[in-house]
């Protein structure tokens, strides 16, 4: 086990360096420049050249890469857009994203698994078919469109603000009302964010369940007279959930990586919006740092999933 972890860790490091070099090349060599994004007749080309020099953009690409790495590890890395340390900018927003995605994940898991089990228990019943239909709808409908509908609908119905993390006029609110206001603002984006995952995961649980309930040990459990609840939730579900570990591994980078579209639609001050704006503004330090963080998280997620497999399924051995 220990040698497996060391070996995987080394692999991880090499992959990471590879990822950072490739993304560096793609990002900096893509057309565009962080300076003078608009054509302003009051800004002479000479000034633009001077600014490029101030930002080290006139140096050869390998040197720029080296400078980025060095600044990243010494904490000197600053955004082109506002001259602030990149880590500070990320730290400001990452918790908002984490909160939103955590709630969405809780919604997904707490609803998808019961739904999936229920569908599997009554395969081809009316409710199961309804579930199937709903799941396909949830997967295929573009989430931004659903978000628009939901926003329009709630504003029309309640006339209450939905965008952002909180309401802006809260002078005469009680503490309880402020808390409810925060929950309300958290609710809509997390529901929308959860819909796609909910649809997918409930289907996944259903099919995995269906496979498991046909196994011999489930039949044995039933034959020895265990109550149905116990058969489904204790014996079958546990085995059916094994593949979910993989999904969990992928979830970690998602939690932090955020959702560019939902954060923009709901004016949620998170990391997804930051990275989108940074890409548009060619703010290389920010783009690269966020990319690297999500690369690290993806790799760690996979790593954890690998280890969890071994724990959850004794048949898997590491060599």
């Amino acid at each position, binding site marked *: 086990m220990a040698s497996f972890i060391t070996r995987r860790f080394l692999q991880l490091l090499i992959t990471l360096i590879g990822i950072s070099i490739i993304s560096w090349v793609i990002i900096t060599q893509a057309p*565009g420049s962080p300076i003078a994004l*608009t054509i302003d007749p*009051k800004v002479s080309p000479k000034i633009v050249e001077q600014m490029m020099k101030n930002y080290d953009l006139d140096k050869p690409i390998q040197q720029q890469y080296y400078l980025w790495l060095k600044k990243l590890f010494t904490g000197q890395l600053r955004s082109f857009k506002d*001259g602030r340390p990149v880590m500070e900018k990320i730290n400001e927003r990452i918790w908002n994203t984490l909160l939103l995605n955590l709630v969405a994940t809780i*919604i997904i898991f707490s609803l998808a698994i019961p739904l999936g089990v229920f569908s599997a228990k009554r395969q081809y019943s009316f409710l199961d078919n309804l579930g199937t239909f709903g799941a396909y709808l949830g997967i295929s409908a573009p989430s931004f469109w659903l978000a628009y509908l939901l926003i329009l609908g709630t504003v029309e119905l*309640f006339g209450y603000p939905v965008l952002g993390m909180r309401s802006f006029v809260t002078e005469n609110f009680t503490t309880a009302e402020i808390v409810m206001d925060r929950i309300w603002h958290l609710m809509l984006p997390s529901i929308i964010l959860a819909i796609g995952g909910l649809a997918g995961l409930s289907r996944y649980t259903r099919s995995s369940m269906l496979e498991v309930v046909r196994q011999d040990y489930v039949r044995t459990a039933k034959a020895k007279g265990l109550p149905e609840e116990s058969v489904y939730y204790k014996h079958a579900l546990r085995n059916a959930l094994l593949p979910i570990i993989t999904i969990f591994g992928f979830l970690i980078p998602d939690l932090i990586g955020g959702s560019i579209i939902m954060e923009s639609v709901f004016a949620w001050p998170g990391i997804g919006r930051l990275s989108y704006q940074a890409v548009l503004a060619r703010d290389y330090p920010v783009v690269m740092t966020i990319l690297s963080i999500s690369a690290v998280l993806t790799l760690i997620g996979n790593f954890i999933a690998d280890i969890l497999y071994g724990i959850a399924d004794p048949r898997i051995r590491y060599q």
Partner: protein
Amino acid sequence: MLISPILFLILLGVNLFFVGSRPPQKVNQLIISSIGDASFLNPILAQDSASSQINSLVFNGLIKYDRDLEGFVGELAESWEVRGGPEPEITFHLRKGILWHDGKEFTAHDVKFTYDKIMDEKTNTVRRSSYELVKKAEVPAPYTFRVTYRQPFSPGLETWSMGIIPKHLLEKVDINTAPFNRKPIGTGPFRFVEWVSDEKIVVEANPRYFQGRPNLDLIIYRILPEVALNEMEIMTRSVDYSSLFPFEFKRISHVPFLKTYSEPSLGYTYLGYNLKNPLFQDRRVRLAFTHAINREEIVQYVLYGLGTVATGPFPNHLWYANPHVKPIPFDPKKARQLLAEAGWKDTDGDGILDKDGKPFRFKLITNSGNETRRDVGVLVQRQLREIGIDVKFEFYEWSVFLKDFVNARHFDACILGWGLSVDPDAYEIWHSSQIEKGFNFISYRNPQVDRLWEEGRREYDIEKRKQIYWRIHELIAEDQPYTFLYVPLGISALQRKFVLVEKEGSSKETFHEIKMEKAGLMYDLIKWTVPQQIVLEQ
């Protein structure tokens, strides 16, 4: 296991109940929506409009434009005088007793410091170009600031409306990364309170403002990146002021608690012809195109009527635009005739005009992501097709568009817009010295116009400048190096609860409706208020 969905539904229900019983609001504050977050709350570093808007509340310039955008009124400077000559000199006499928000006194050294920081090559500012003709800047007395130019340069006056930054706070730090840029100290009517990234920026009334404390207690900038949903926030009254899309205008103007405003923007959209391309070197061809393009139709259908047809290189509503230059009328017959005169006829009967066996075919480009320009392009393409011109219309991502086409001078014709400053000087766009590396990327060359731009920069007298720019307007309209398409109207909505209050004497207050000025709706912002005794209509 089924408990979690039930819990979830209960939470949702409680929330909906709460939302239905929300109390109404009545506070003396203004919430403005902004698409993007600010970058630097420091006027010399800021480039984006969000930052500039907030900076204009927190900082003051020496002077500012008057409400008709014709002359200047003093701000930090009480008065100023211009001494002409080959090396003109402007002397600003500053107001005494103005305090920075931290209590220190403002002096001419702060002005000098601001200028020095702009000129410092290490400062990441794009403003430097505007000050390049300054020979020296000095402080002859603590409340006097004098600047000497290398040559007469009247557009230079406008640059002194730049916000002045405090020397005592920025002297010893690297201005590009100073924490000051996120919690600014200025002299302006509003003091900085708080900035939550990507969410809001809050400023409050400055009780010691030299023109008196503003009536509004707070101004909040809300950052709402999804413009299409702005409307929702106005309707739920969680935004008081927002700019609008043309398609929202009609709908919003029917809302009883909102008032809509429109103002001509400082800029125009045009169809520019690359004059290096032999196709467009004949003036008759360009004129024919303008005749063939129905600009009224473009304004009506693309802008929902919220714009005016442009006649030349200036926005129509300001003093330097020549009212005698009339828009070239839509006249496809005339267009065909002009093209025939230039030798373009359909000899092979394929519906496309040709000359010396070559069909009239060219590529029109614009940047992607701008739906207005895309729609304009499609209309232009169709209208030109009707007089027998085959246009291929393509879009490119903005940076590619700039680098590979516009800056490389590698295009036939393009649709673009200029955002201009208030001063009429557009030397950078039209002077032939700017063909090589400047912004004259269509390679327009007219010695008479060149001379007039130079003259306009040398002249300080507004009446004389007017004559010069009126003439330029005429000449450029005659040459038609662009087909000037339209000047869009900027439109916005404001909650009706805001009024202007004029204080006469000590007790008498009169309320007025907020009106659009040429200098913008917010010109009298410090007089805005929400009257407490008036009950808001629901």
